[in-house]
């Protein structure tokens, strides 16, 4: 165990994993097909679980193992499975139909990361292994918010929301080194419920508007 701890420190494992998460978000924001988005989400969630495990080893906090396990169960297996089902049932086309083209989205994602890195560094100072994680997590949140804005299809909005939640989770435990297990479980459970409700909503929107294209929702305005 001490050996693994040393490796984690020497090789900057925590930085690597969180950078991997950031990259997967960027990949999602510029992906062209819904399936790719979903795959990016699965990767992102696996990395999150891995990061938790790494923290658990490095800081010897056993309850983070439990959190990691539930992350794998929920975010890597159940939610993607459910989303795949919804996508199949809705029979949406595979293209994500963004408002902005892929290069522009990439540039904006890049700009957001630069913004966060240049401004957050002055305000909140985090020492220790997790020194970069907070910035990365805020970047993830902003990029996924931007992606939600940029997409026309309601399904991809849900994806953006899920990414954002991962970012929040990351921020949460990089600052606190693990919230109480009960809270982590609660958040996970909320997430599951959220996704299911959104699934129902999507089918309803599909029924009333014939498509899940959000442009149609403007007609609801009084």
């Amino acid at each position, binding site marked *: 165990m001490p050996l693994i701890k040393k490796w984690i420190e020497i090789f900057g494992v925590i930085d690597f994993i969180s950078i991997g998460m950031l990259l997967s978000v960027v990949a999602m924001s510029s992906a062209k097909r819904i399936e790719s988005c979903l795959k990016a989400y699965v990767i992102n969630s696996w990395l999150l679980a891995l990061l938790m495990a790494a923290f658990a080893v490095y800081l010897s906090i056993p309850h983070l193992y439990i959190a990691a396990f539930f992350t794998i169960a929920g975010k890597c297996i159940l939610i993607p499975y459910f989303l795949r089902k919804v996508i199949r049932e809705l029979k949406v086309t595979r293209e994500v139909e963004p408002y902005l083209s892929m290069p522009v989205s990439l540039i904006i994602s890049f700009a957001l990361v630069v913004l966060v890195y240049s*401004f957050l560094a002055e305000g909140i100072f985090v020492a220790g292994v997790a020194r970069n994680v907070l910035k990365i997590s805020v970047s993830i949140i902003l990029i996924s918010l931007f992606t939600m*804005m*940029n997409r026309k299809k309601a399904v991809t909005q849900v994806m953006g929301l899920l990414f954002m939640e991962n970012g929040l989770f990351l921020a949460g435990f990089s600052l606190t080194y693990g919230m109480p297990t009960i809270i982590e479980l609660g958040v996970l459970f909320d997430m599951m419920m959220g996704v299911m409700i959104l699934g129902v909503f999507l089918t309803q929107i599909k029924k009333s508007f014939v498509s899940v294209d959000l442009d149609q929702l403007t007609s609801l305005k009084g």
Partner: protein
Amino acid sequence: MISLAFFICGAVFFAITPKKGLLHYLYLLYAAGAGLAAFSFARALYDLGSPGAAPTLAFALHISPALAVSFRGGPLQDFFGLLLSVAAFAASVYSSGYMKDNAAPRFQGIFYGLFILSMGAVFLSGDALSFLISWEAMSLVSYFLVISDTESEAAQNAGLTYATMTHIGTAFIIGAFMLAFAATGSLDFAGMAAGLAGKSMALKSAIFILSFIGFGMKAGIVPLHIWLPKAHPAAPSNVSALMSGVMIKAGVYGVMLMSLYVLGGPGAHYATWWGIVVLATGAASSVLGVLYALMEKDLKRLLAYSSVENVGIIFLGTGAALVFYSFGQTALAGLALAAALYHAMNHAMFKGLLFLGSGSVMHGVHSKNLEEMGGLLKRMPYTGLFFLMGSVSICALPPFNGFVSEWLTFQSLILGSVTPPAYSKVVTLLGGAALALTGALAAAAFVKAFGVAFLGMPRGPKAREAREAGFPMTASLGFLAAMCLILGVEPGLLLRLISAMPFAGLAQMGSAAPFHSPLTVAGGFSGFWPAAIFASMLTGLLAIIVLAGVFGRRRKITYADSWDCGIKALTPRMQYTATAFTKPLRVIFKTLYMPRKEVRISFKQKPLFVSGITYRSDITPFMENYLYKPLTAFVGKVALKIRHLQSGSLPLYLGYIMLTLIGLLLVWA
């Protein structure tokens, strides 16, 4: 407590009594409750000086240590409670006749009872929370009563204006209470008063101004009065009487409570400008109120504008009291405050009387328009007599009550203008001048109202067929008229109750008017003897009758038509109309009224054969046109601009969130 039970029974019976024809008798239950309450309030005030006196009502429900719903009687509370219950007694007796054939008797009956109850709750609330709850209940119930009478669009609009204005006012009141709570940590008025004693002047001033605007809205001070002449006439007359007679006093009560009790604990310092603000507002309200009352053709609107005027007079007294307190001249302040309280009580009596009287008139004529009345004194003698008594009281002529309170107000303002320091002299002098102008104009307004409605010839078929109102209605008018007379002849009765209040300087008022002897102020600075005036008037009248009987017996009496300049047939169209009567004043105050005239002539054959001429004359509503219209237009414009933000596009909404997040990041990171 017993009277509370009567009210609840009344409301419940209104809900359950099956026969609609019997409903109006239930108002007598309310009357009984109000009568009992009046006795207990008067008793409590009378006993105040004596040791071991119990409060009229003490009730507290503790929700948490800091939060309690409490109702408590106290001197100021009991005084306004007395005012409410006497007016409510008369109005309830009146209603038992007036509401006989009404459109929605059940609904109006229940809400009428709730209205009186909620006003009582406002006066007796011991803490900010229960005060606000009762206040809102009072506003909402009265709103429903305003829109209950007719389904006309005008009434609905009046209700809407009223609801909007009153809620803006409530927002200000909540602001004042929250400031006080933040500073003292107590919602209880007594706790607030204790906590605010040592606080900074800026905080106190903020609380004062917020509460003055909020309560002033309800009291109908200029320029916050515009709802009043719309809403009061729209309600049924028994409710208008209570709204004008009592509900606007809730605003007065609020101002007095906040300024004298909460902000003015023992040894408190007042800023002089508070009093000056109140005094100036009072002067503006009284003059403008009566000026607009003069121009009204609608009897109830005239009365409503006159309420604005009378609230102005009450605030003249209150403001003068605050100014004197700020200079430590407690004796003068007590005089001014006593005048204000006296006038509040008087106004409840005579405005109640006049509104109820106008209800009787409408009952007979089926119109509110003065131009359709005329000659009613012959057809409705009792109503006419009592209405005349009310008019004389409101014009402040002896031997009625209006004279006493306006005389007291005058005395305090005049004494203020001979007592240093210099600039308070100027202010009180100007206030006195405004009051003098108001008095004269009010007399003109009520000569017009009474003369056009009751004297001369009927102006229309409706007026010709008018019949006297039923017994309960005239009886309650008679009761209020008697109250006006008693309060005018024996001011010591009420002054003794007022002097029991624990505000500095009021105690001297108890000895100002011993029974059956002159009323003097400031140690004999001036005085008059109301009972003697009444007695001499009565003797004079008797003497005339006796002399006429003695010397007139031998003369021959011939009955003939009035002289008609030889035209041979007098028609109602030859009389002064309400509009024509006030023409000279319209010319004098032209700059304020901005009268508009429109003559339209239609021809059969131009230019010689005229088929008809229509003439319209109107005054420009100054406040509405130059204050409220621009304001509403501005708000509407801004709202339209803001509406563009609400595009309905989800990505845009997400964009707002994102911009906010980035903004926060830039600001706080």
